[in-house]
């Protein structure tokens, strides 16, 4: 059964299959490729139908991803532990600086109480941890209706948009 994720504030089925080793490439369907094996798969990916995403960790240098962005449908940033905040900065650089507009997903140790900040940093999809209720996690996207800073969704800080 495909796993459920949150995407664009709704619970949907994940169409992507994770590929962590070169031999695992399925014949068809959407695939999420670990960045470690992306170069090995370049030629096979070019001749294949289906969407392609890459999976990275928060410490990856965004410039390394820049040349791939046009060909990617999904970038999944893994949080090894929810306290590791590097993925937030990476997400903002991908959105704000490199102009990535595809799906940006948080995976790994993803919990309800971090989703609001993640959303503001540019994530639009989330894989909440397996042992947690995804419906409950969805509520985390609506903790606040007001914010002070500029972020990936709202370019104007509060002082450019005072009510």
């Amino acid at each position, binding site marked *: 059964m495909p796993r459920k994720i949150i995407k664009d504030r709704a619970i949907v089925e994940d169409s992507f299959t994770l590929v962590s080793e070169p031999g695992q490439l399925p014949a068809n369907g959407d695939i999420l490729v670990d960045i470690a094996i992306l170069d090995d798969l370049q030629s096979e990916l070019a001749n294949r139908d289906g969407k392609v995403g890459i999976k990275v960790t928060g*410490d990856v240098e965004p410039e390394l991803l820049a040349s791939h962005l046009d060909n990617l449908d999904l970038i999944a940033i893994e949080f090894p532990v*929810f*306290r*590791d*905040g*590097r993925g*937030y*900065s*990476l997400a*903002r650089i991908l959105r*704000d*600086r490199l102009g990535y507009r595809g799906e940006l997903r948080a995976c790994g140790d993803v*919990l309800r*109480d*971090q989703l*609001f*900040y*993640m959303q*503001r*940093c540019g994530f639009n999809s989330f894989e909440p941890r397996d042992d947690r209720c995804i419906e*409950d996690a969805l509520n985390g996207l609506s*903790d*606040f*209706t*007001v*914010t*002070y*800073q*500029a*972020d990936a969704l709202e*370019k*104007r*800080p*509060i*002082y*450019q948009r*005072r*009510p």
Partner: protein
Amino acid sequence: MYAYTEYDQQLLNERVAQYRNQTERFLAGKLTDEEFLALRLQNGLYVQRHAPMLRVAIPYGMLNSAQVRVLAEISRDFDKGYAHFSTRQNIQYNWPALELVPDILEKLASVQMHAIQTSGNCIRNVTTDQFAGVATDELEDPRPWCEIIRQWSTFHPEFAYLPRKFKIAVNASESDRAAIKFHDIGVEIVKDAAGQTAFDIWVGGGLGRTPIVAEKVAEALPPKYLLSYLEAVLRVYNRYGRRDNKYKARIKILVKALGVEAFREKVEAEWAHMKDSEMDLPEAEVARMQAFFPAPAYATLADNPAELVEQRAANPGFDAWVKRNCTAHKQAGYMAVTLSLKATAVAPGDVTTEELFAIADLADQYSFGEIRSTHKQNVVLADVRQDQLFELWGKLKELGFATANIGCLTDVICCPGGDFCSLANAKSIPIAEQIQRQFDDLDYLYDLGDIELNISGCMNACGHHHIGNIGILGVDKKGEEYYQVSLGGCSGRDAKVGKIIGPSFFENDIAGVITKIIDVYVEKRIEGESFLSTYERVGMDPFKERVYAA
């Protein structure tokens, strides 16, 4: 002072609801201890030796009397009748029940207060000079800039899970009462070549296990770039700060590892993408913030009115108090009064419920209803008429707040220590008391002049022992409490980390050790020389020889 708009209040109300829900889910077993830990810490809630400790934010030390009354009510209704001013201008409760914290937050929110980001690996409460806006040596009022930084740092979505805590202080005065060079970021207000307000940005200062004086990374930064530059520094830290070892995770370690030049290059590369955007601060926003900090409705008065001169002549105790506890003021006829929370046998920084109510009343009566907390754990009434000082002094004496020891050896900075804190290796409050009892002769203290003595119960250095002229650090040796003494630290413009004098001392010997150190100072000093200057001239050896002499 800053007054919330509906927007600010809505944010705070939503925060209370969010935290209430988080607490409920924790109590229902839906959040693990570890998951809730990060959430409660970002809300200032520690689990301590006896009970949780809740740290409430006092943004850059500013309070009004209504807020102080609510702090008093909380100490009465949710605590054991007292509260504690911390070394970062905040206030702490040592006995709240975890499940009642949402109710406390709701009460705080009713007077525009909160506990947001008072702990945890995020941007903490911004601090500044307790005499902001009234000091005679200040370039301009730093508080509007503090509020701008406060709003930018509150619930910043990118910087809630930093490698470690992050403290920002702002200074606008010649003497630097905010110790900015010992902060993760120190913002110094300067004037550029054209006489316009600008900022020098200092990064990588800090205390703890590795005390380091900050380095200057930007000079004369134009105001419109303040927030984009801070954001660039934070982003570089968030991405490259160490996360493998909590003792090496502060930004000071990153700045040291890269070197300040390489660190600056990284920040500027990041900043190049952020500046000249909608993040730039419009002049209208700065003016809007400045309008929240107008001069109060001062009366037209002259300095040193006749009655004050007579009262000082007739009452040596009052005269001494004016000299030590009252500070010169921008406005003729006024002074800033520091209430000493350092009476002997009272834990430094502690206040009772009744005392908090009394402080609120005094603020209404004598100081336009405003109160400030200081990083030295005292309380300031910043705008008192000189012709009312005598009357105020009388009331402060009754309350026990008139100990005329501000800046003296007994105006000790002291963390809660082993009596309360679960991190501490040793007690600190009884050490402060021991020293205060030993040096109970005020005339002798005045003769000694300004001496900063700081005590921490562990390496985390909440009592700022590294930057005391005399620093005392509690250490644990095989289960016994010992104390290491350092000399020569300084928190101001000539910031320095003190040097350890030698092997540590037994608890009961501390007052005797401090007495020997002071004796050496008195013998060696040249007329008018401060303790710190004498130490710098004669060096460590004479002190060392005396304290370890058989």
